[in-house]
């Protein structure tokens, strides 16, 4: 009985089309306020830049990628739109999870694989996504979603490359998911 209630709860998600309209309105608000769309990987970059600067001030100057970034973000790299936005994402995600009763410390994985295998693949996936997002100038949020909304050609190309590759490789990683 209590198990059933938990399942019911975890299934209480928004209708996806309604969720999409709401996501679109949030993205519209971001464009209206800041003149730019949403993003996620940019905030990671800010934190990495800050960490490098804090640990070793000179290291930034030996890394052209970060040097250029620091140059275009005068002052504190943490004082960026995307950093504040991503702090909000953590709060908003937490609140939604709390209201729906989904707060739980756990490793989510298919019953056919171990937690360890799931975590190894999560780490590898994160590393690849972090690297790819820098090369591609933005991730699913900043490049694909936000780019598509402003009809950027690069946004559409990145979106097709991300989803096309994931579909093409799905067969090889099927054991992890189905």
């Amino acid at each position: 009985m209590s198990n059933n209630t938990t399942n019911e709860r975890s299934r209480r998600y928004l209708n996806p089309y309604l969720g999409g309209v709401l996501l679109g309105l949030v993205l519209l608000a971001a464009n209206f306020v800041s003149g730019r769309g949403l993003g996620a990987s940019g905030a990671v970059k800010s934190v990495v830049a800050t960490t490098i600067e804090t640990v070793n001030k000179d290291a930034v100057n030996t890394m052209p990628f970060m040097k250029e970034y620091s140059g275009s973000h005068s002052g504190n790299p943490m004082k960026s739109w995307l950093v504040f936005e991503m702090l909000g994402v953590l709060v908003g995600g937490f609140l939604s999870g709390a209201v729906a009763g989904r707060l739980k410390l756990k490793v989510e994985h298919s019953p056919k694989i171990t937690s360890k295998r799931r975590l190894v693949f999560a780490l590898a996936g994160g590393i690849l996504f972090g690297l790819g997002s820098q090369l591609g100038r933005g991730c699913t949020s900043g490049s694909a979603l936000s780019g598509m909304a402003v009809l950027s050609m690069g946004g559409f190309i990145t979106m097709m490359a991300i989803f096309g590759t994931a579909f093409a490789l799905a067969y090889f990683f099927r054991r992890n998911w189905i």
Partner: protein
Amino acid sequence: MGPLAPNELISENTNFLLAFFIGIAFGWVLESSGFSSSRKLAGIFYGYDAVVLKVFFTGAITCMLGLLFMSLFGWIDLDLVYVNPTYLTSAIIGGVIMGAGFIMGGFCPGTSFCGAAIGKIDAMVFVGGLFIGVYGFAFTYPLWEKMYMARYLGEPKVSEKLGMSDGLFGLLLIVAALCMFAVAEWAEKKFPREEY
């Protein structure tokens, strides 16, 4: 009128405060749509759950239409709205690397932060991977630089490139999305999964 910050109608600090609130709404929508679950996200690649496709395309289209209408009403100056530049080579190769990361890790950066916020340990590990990946790119940037800068095409709109108006392209995108939604609904029935 809009966009507010580029038109200097709000201060930099107000812009940051609004970023925080917009982020809260973003995180709320992602989590309540089920984007905090890697197994739900990965469902699109096996047909058992197409929530990613539905939310993603409905979101992009809603915003696109909103911007077109607001521009039509004179509420926003689209010339001041950032259009992502197109560097053809890195857009494709970066996307391919991200796609591999998506199917392996089950998250993308935004959704991993959402999953981490509600206690998913796999999402936290993914976020850790993101930091390593970003640092790794910065550290090895000289190796990527040529590819990163290759085939720069400016900031073209896809509608321009196809020689049609924004409105017509938008309409075609909506029709394409509706067709994909129909396939998605069919696939979810054909490849159902009990509990995940």
